[in-house]
């Protein structure tokens, strides 16, 4: 339903997304995961033909977004990030306007509006003015709006942001239910959320895809990579230099990342390890050979949260980021 090839969008002075490639089949629920500013919204805006890509192609429901923007939009229901709506209109009136604008015939509009109002639980507020709605109801109104012309594809930009846990659960179950009839691409920067709803996750960072696969596979392939917490001290009174420790640790074979900080003259470092590696012995030998004192050495496996943070917090271009990304790709292949 959605095919994206080498899609690139640059704004003056910045590149929002760079050579994205992915495709989404009919009936899939795909999560688009990344920190703020990763390019999620930009990608979604291109897919709804709201902005034009700088290069590359995107096809939605078989139509090229640049050549047939109206056909693309007819097939897509879009929930923009901060759920804009006309504040002075009433809920029902707003949905009616949107339905007609999206080409729902007058005769069917009433039935469609009743259906989406029922589905999104807007029955209590259908005569209220949009400006007076709570955040939760606004979000549901946005969903109802996206659904009103019964499009085969839904593109939802952060559908649960700003909601309380209860509302999040409701929206989540609504999305799961919608997934039976619609192809859905939703974005989020909250990992557990997409993990529960989506059949597949695309992790994007700084405009590039760093990993994509089913959540279980992502977890399996990446979770193995453990991390090692090391605390070091120099043998004499002089404080241990952070750079020195960092360099030495990074030089170990099998270390993918070093996160070091100086605490009271000690150095605490968190090491990211390659999958299936146990470097406790090597670290011990290293400290002995340098004459440092080892205060702490503990190993733990990464949570999914950390995997995400790991994949998305490093500067692209850094060697280790490239390595991590490569690993992730290898892992999921």
């Amino acid at each position, binding site marked *: 339903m959605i095919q994206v090839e080498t899609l690139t969008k640059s704004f003056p002075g910045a590149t929002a997304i760079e050579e994205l490639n992915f495709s989404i089949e009919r009936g899939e629920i795909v999560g688009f995961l990344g920190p703020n500013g990763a390019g999620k919204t930009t990608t979604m805006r291109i897919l709804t*033909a*709201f902005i034009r890509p700088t290069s590359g192609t995107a096809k939605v429901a078989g139509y090229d977004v640049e050549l047939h923007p*109206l056909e693309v939009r007819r097939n897509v229901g879009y929930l923009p990030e901060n759920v804009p709506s006309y504040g*002075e209109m009433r809920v029902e009136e707003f949905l009616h*306007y*949107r339905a007609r604008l999206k*080409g729902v015939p007058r005769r069917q509009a009433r039935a469609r509006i009743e259906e989406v109002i029922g589905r999104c639980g807007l029955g209590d507020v259908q005569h209220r003015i949009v400006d007076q709605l709570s955040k939760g109801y606004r979000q549901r109104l946005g969903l109802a709006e996206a659904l009103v012309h019964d499009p085969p594809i839904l593109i939802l930009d952060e559908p649960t942001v700003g909601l309380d846990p209860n509302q999040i659960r409701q929206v989540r179950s609504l999305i799961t239910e919608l997934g039976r009839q619609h192809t859905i691409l939703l974005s989020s920067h909250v990992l557990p959320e997409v993990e529960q709803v989506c059949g597949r996750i695309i992790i994007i960072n700084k405009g590039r895809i760093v990993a994509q696969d089913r959540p279980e596979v992502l977890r399996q392939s990446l979770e193995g990579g453990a991390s090692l917490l090391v605390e070091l001290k120099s043998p004499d009174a002089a404080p241990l230099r952070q750079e020195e420790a960092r360099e030495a640790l990074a030089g170990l074979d099998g270390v993918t990342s070093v996160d070091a900080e100086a605490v009271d003259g000690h150095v605490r470092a968190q090491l990211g390890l390659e999958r299936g590696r146990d470097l406790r012995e090597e670290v011990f030998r290293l400290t002995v050979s340098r004459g440092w004192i080892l205060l702490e050495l503990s190993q733990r496996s990464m949570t999914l949260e950390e995997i995400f943070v790991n994949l998305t917090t490093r500067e692209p271009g850094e060697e280790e980021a490239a390595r991590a990304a490569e690993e992730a790709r290898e892992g999921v292949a």
Partner: protein
Amino acid sequence: MSNVWQICRRELKSYFVSPRGYLVLAAFLLLQGIVFYLIVQAFSREGAPVGSIMQIFLGRNIFFWIFVLLILPVITMGLIAEERRSGTVELLLTAPVTEAQVIGGKYLAAYLYYVSLWVPTLLYPLLLSSYAKLDPWPIAAGYLYLLCIGAPFVALGLWASSLSRSQIVAAMLTFALMFLFFIIPVFLEEQARAEWLRNGLVYINLWNPAGDFGKGIVDSRLIVYCVTSTLFLLFLSARSLEIRKAA
């Protein structure tokens, strides 16, 4: 066409459900009422031609222009700037509508609102006709005149609104441009040395035709000028929406 109508209808509603729409209407009518009263008073001496009251009222007094130049930016400033500020432009332009349809709908709504400002003033000639016999055609031509000049001004305001996300900026820009377009031909015509320049300025002068129209002479040059400049400005507005897509 349905899309144009849907957009127009929503826009018209937003004029008439907000206090702004009524405030503008009320202020406009109050000021026009005062001007009408002053004109009537000036003409109430013995033997003065009653018909020329409407002629002066419709375009041949400076207040007419002050009101038009001040109120038009208020009508048009929000058309697109507000959609951009509140983000609803993302809804509008992810619905299956073309930029031209959006511009068409918005323009129609603003223009109809402009026309609706003048509708209550139709009472004035009715009032006058109870005191004297009026020739209806010059008055009809007078109203045709203000329908004509409103068209490019509303389009200008729409274009200015498409350039900014701030309503204030859009309003200031509209006012400045309208003022330029109005003031340059009226005041520079006399000073223009070159024949061609003077003729050009005469052609785009919006003030002078008011005299002819008031007398019942419908000048097709003004109609052509207004229609073509409106179309051109609408084209610019649609382009400005499209360019945003690539940015």
